[in-house]
């Protein structure tokens, strides 16, 4: 012991160092700090060099690592480790979906009048009898204003439509062309189906144009869906959401694991059953979410894009399955929180709970 006793403790350098150590110990979980903080502090003060006012960098780093280890610590055993990994994977998926949903809420859909105006710009002519359908609910996985018209546009070309949109400040995406199987009686119609997307100010328009070259049917039928462009910060929101979910899953499993250790068999069997049920319910939305993330990250999505990541938490049936998973998880936490200390607890654990 390099410095001990009341005399040493009253020295200002010693008091200052102790304050620093106490601040560092705040990084530990509160329960652990209450049980072991004074003991760790005693060792830190014992091992401190005389005259030191502030902790060494090595001590700060070591306590930081120790605190992180305590936060993420799991009970000994493979089963808790597996449960923690699965909980992190599942809640990470839920968090990523929630992050995606929040990112998409930042922008508002354009009004129906604006959507009609955009469609008329693409058409190059006013709509005569437009049909406008607006899907803008918080649980609509694809928020959009759909505009269609029976009007057949003569002489419409994709090049002129794109030029008009470009002049209006839109950024054009690739065009996808296909030859549709259209028949009038036995006669196959000479037609082309073209789709392209354009974006401007957080909004996007997808233009669908069916051009028929059959002499007496010649013309283009055009419809659009005006929707939100993929938010630029959605990947960050997904990543943050995943991290929050995964960390929460790990920490809650660790907490529940310690609470349920050495508890009565019926309670542990109930937790096992709920855990397996949660896992079964979570399988489909979790795999779906990671598959969507994979597609968003590693594949060319083309003009049609893909369903946003948040659809796995707002659209049924996956949303119902996620709800069931979270309910089962909550039930496990309630069983853990209400677990009483059994007589089988080790002596060490009892000593640990004794305050000096």
């Amino acid at each position: 012991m390099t410095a001990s006793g009341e005399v040493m403790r009253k020295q200002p350098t010693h008091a200052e160092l102790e304050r620093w150590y106490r601040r560092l110990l705040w990084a530990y979980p509160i329960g652990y700090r209450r049980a072991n903080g004074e003991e760790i502090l005693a060792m830190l003060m014992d091992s401190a060099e005389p005259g030191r006012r502030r902790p060494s960098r090595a001590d700060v780093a070591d306590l930081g690592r120790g605190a992180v280890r305590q936060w993420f610590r799991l009970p000994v055993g493979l089963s808790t480790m597996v449960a923690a990994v699965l909980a992190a994977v599942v809640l990470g998926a839920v968090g990523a979906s929630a992050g995606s949903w929040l990112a998409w809420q930042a922008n508002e859909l354009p009004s129906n009048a604006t959507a009609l105006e955009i469609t008329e710009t693409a058409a190059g002519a006013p709509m005569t009898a437009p049909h406008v359908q607006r899907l803008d609910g918080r649980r609509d996985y694809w928020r959009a204003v759909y505009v269609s018209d029976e009007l057949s546009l003569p002489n419409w070309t994709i090049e002129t439509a794109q030029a008009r949109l470009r002049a209006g400040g839109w950024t054009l995406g690739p065009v996808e062309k296909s030859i549709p199987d259209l028949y009038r009686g036995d006669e196959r119609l000479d037609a082309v189906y073209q789709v392209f997307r354009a974006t401007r100010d957080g909004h996007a328009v997808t233009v669908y144009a069916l051009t028929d070259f059959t002499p007496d049917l010649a013309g283009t039928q055009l419809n659009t869906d005006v929707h939100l462009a993929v938010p630029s910060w959605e990947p960050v929101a997904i990543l943050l959401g995943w991290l929050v979910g995964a960390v929460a899953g790990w920490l809650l499993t660790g907490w529940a694991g310690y609470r349920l250790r050495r508890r009565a068999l019926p309670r542990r069997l109930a937790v096992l059953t709920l855990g397996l049920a949660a896992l079964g319910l979570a399988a489909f939305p979790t795999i779906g979410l990671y598959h969507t993330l994979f597609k968003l990250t590693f594949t060319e999505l083309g003009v049609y894009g893909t369903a946003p990541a948040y659809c796995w938490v707002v659209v049924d049936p996956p949303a119902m399955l996620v709800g069931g998973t979270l309910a089962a998880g909550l039930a496990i936490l309630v069983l853990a929180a209400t677990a009483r200390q059994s007589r089988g607890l080790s002596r060490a654990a009892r000593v640990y709970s004794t305050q000096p």
Partner: protein
Amino acid sequence: MQEPTFLILTALATGPKHGYGVTQEVAELSEGTVKLRAGTLYGALDRLVEQELITVDRQEVVDGRLRRYYRLTDAGAGRLAERARRLRKQAEAAESRLRTRPNLALGFTAGSFGASA
């Protein structure tokens, strides 16, 4: 079992010690190569308590500071003995093989000169 764990159990083999005592003993046992700081030491002690290899023997308040003394359990002593036996066996195997190592430069084996048994 990692080296710090082995050294902590060894430090406690002679009797109960508090955290600072364990670090001093470990430093001595390892000839100064292993210096356990508080965060690392208490992480390891907690894990060993959880595995029931060590247990809290008693706690005292000295000069207003809490000292908790840890001691080796029977299970811990058994694990330490087993680990020591394995290490001894491995060390013996290493020494034995080193004795028969051919001296490539001279074309002799170490045993040819009756190297230490």
